[in-house]
């Protein structure tokens, strides 16, 4: 080992340690920012020390690429609005996957002398990277409504997919036994096609699962590329990201009471129309009248959903929270794991609106004491508060853990109309006696209540 390789590898050890410590500090909101800082320092020293590599003879392209990449990254991070975080994460998943795919690609162009195992690993890097890239682009298009967000299913899809898997296996075998320079285009083409086919039939409520899964893939792609080029730090960092994505995917699936395979392969079963009829009538209420109930309330629970993000109602909600607190009421937020389009989406929006993080409660913390709340305000959430999941056997979402908002003394639902949620299921909550529908734009309705308080 030459001196420079020794220094580089020793620094990688320090860097790996800092990545791990950074993630450890991310375990609490108070230390999380420091954790992110440590992680970025780990990255910085890894990059700087890598530049000592003896095989680098020209810095021209490196400099151009790093400067251009930094500018793009800076602009993205600076100007993204918090409601668009799912789109940004999706896009970055894809960019990471493509970077790993290109790295694996340039590795085989630079050197064709590999063992079969090494070729198989390079193949994995190409495949996972390609799938991550094209899959993330489709997910991004769905999230940003550049294409229809519903699952896309067509006749013969299963056979097409089987054929594709067969193609991937055959190409993998061929690539591993004999490296042919034209074969790589086929491999990349197959990988890209596969990414598209995997994400097309998934949509709607399952988007948080897809984003988490692609997040994991982007790490695994880096990991595979690391094994291919024999770089320890790529393996460690990639594995950390891969593990993180897998854990989040598991949490999302559990929160929807669905297995990963049913998310990936079956789409949402919209055809099973519930034959259960819901008794009762919907009772609308004006935002002005809602104020009188809120004024008398001692405790209020807010359940946000994707609709809050769409209406940008988080700031108005925070304003109402302050008024309620000044009026002597306790206000907490109950957040379902799959509320919004990605894990933790609602928490970020509320943090942006300056809501203290200790008021953001998880479903399991809030459910045991739901009965004690005078008012539950549901903003743009639907399936995550649907009591059918609890007591209507045969409902497509039966068994999914939900926030039992219907057990609160009064329930206000802020909603545009009577449309159903992602799952396409009617919500018996709206027909309950203690429930009042406040129709209209959520932000407008909240502002009306705020005005009433000020008078």
């Amino acid at each position, binding site marked *: 080992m030459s001196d420079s390789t020794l220094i580089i590898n020793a620094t990688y050890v320090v860097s790996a340690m800092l990545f791990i410590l950074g993630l*450890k500090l*991310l*375990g609490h909101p108070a230390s999380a*920012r420091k954790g992110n*800082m440590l*992680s*970025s320092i780990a*990255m910085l020293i890894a*990059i700087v020390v890598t*530049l000592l*590599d003896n*095989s*680098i*003879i020209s810095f021209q*392209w490196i400099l*151009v690429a*790093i400067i251009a*990449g930094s500018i*793009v*990254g800076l602009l993205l*991070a600076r100007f993204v609005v*918090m409601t668009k975080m799912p789109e*940004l*994460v999706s896009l*970055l998943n894809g960019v*990471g996957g493509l970077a790993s795919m*290109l*790295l694996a690609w*340039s*590795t085989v162009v630079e050197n064709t002398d590999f063992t079969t195992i090494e070729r198989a690993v390079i193949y994995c890097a190409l495949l996972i990277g390609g799938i991550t890239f094209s899959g993330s682009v489709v997910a991004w298009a769905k999230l940003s409504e550049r294409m229809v967000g519903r699952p896309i299913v067509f006749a013969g899809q299963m056979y097409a997919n089987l054929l594709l898997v067969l193609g991937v296996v055959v190409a993998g075998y061929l690539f591993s036994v004999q490296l042919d320079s034209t074969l790589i285009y086929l491999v990349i083409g197959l990988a890209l096609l596969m990414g598209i086919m995997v994400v097309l039939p998934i949509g709607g409520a399952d988007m948080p699962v897809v984003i*988490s899964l692609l*997040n994991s893939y982007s*790490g695994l792609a*880096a*990991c595979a*590329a690391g094994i291919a*080029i024999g*770089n*320890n730090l*790529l393996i460690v*960092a990639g594995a*950390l*990201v*891969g593990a*993180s994505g897998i*854990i989040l995917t598991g*949490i999302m699936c559990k929160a929807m009471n669905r297995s990963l395979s049913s998310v990936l392969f079956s789409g949402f079963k919209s055809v099973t129309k519930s034959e259960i009829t819901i008794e009762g009538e919907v009772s609308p209420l004006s935002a002005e009248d809602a104020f009188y109930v809120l004024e008398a309330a001692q405790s209020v629970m807010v359940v946000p959903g994707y609709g809050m993000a769409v209406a940008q109602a988080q700031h108005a909600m925070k304003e109402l929270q302050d008024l309620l607190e000044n009026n002597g009421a306790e206000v907490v937020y109950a*957040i379902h*794991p799959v509320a919004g389009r*990605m*894990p*933790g989406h609602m*928490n*970020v929006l509320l*943090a942006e609106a*300056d809501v*203290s*993080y200790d008021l*953001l409660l*998880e479903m399991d913390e809030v459910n045991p004491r739901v009965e004690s709340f005078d008012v539950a305000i549901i903003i743009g959430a639907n399936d995550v508060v649907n009591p059918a999941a609890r007591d209507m056997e045969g409902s497509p979402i039966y068994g999914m853990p939900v926030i039992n908002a219907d057990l609160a003394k009064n329930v206000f639902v802020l909603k545009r109309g009577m449309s159903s949620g992602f799952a396409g299921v009617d919500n018996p909550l709206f027909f309950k006696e203690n429930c009042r529908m406040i129709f209209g734009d959520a932000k407008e309705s909240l502002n009306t209540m705020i005005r009433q308080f000020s008078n």
Partner: protein
Amino acid sequence: MDTISLLFILMLSIFVGFELIRKIPATLHTPLMSGANAISGITVIGALALAGGSGGDYVTVLSAFSVFLATINVVGGYLVTDRMLAMFKKK
């Protein structure tokens, strides 16, 4: 290093990852994901040597583009994560 010892490192890292990430509260899951985006930009260090090496134009173009993309992840990921985490306050 031979592939088997690399797989050892992989196995251990995955276990460390699982143990660490399990402890991260739901409220921080979005910053966790964007932070993970940044970490997956580690690909940059693999691509650097190839982008500055003597592998020919084809290799340089591919790997320099890889450096570019990975840098977007690193810079964009860390900055947006920091921007989010700065908003999490306790009053």
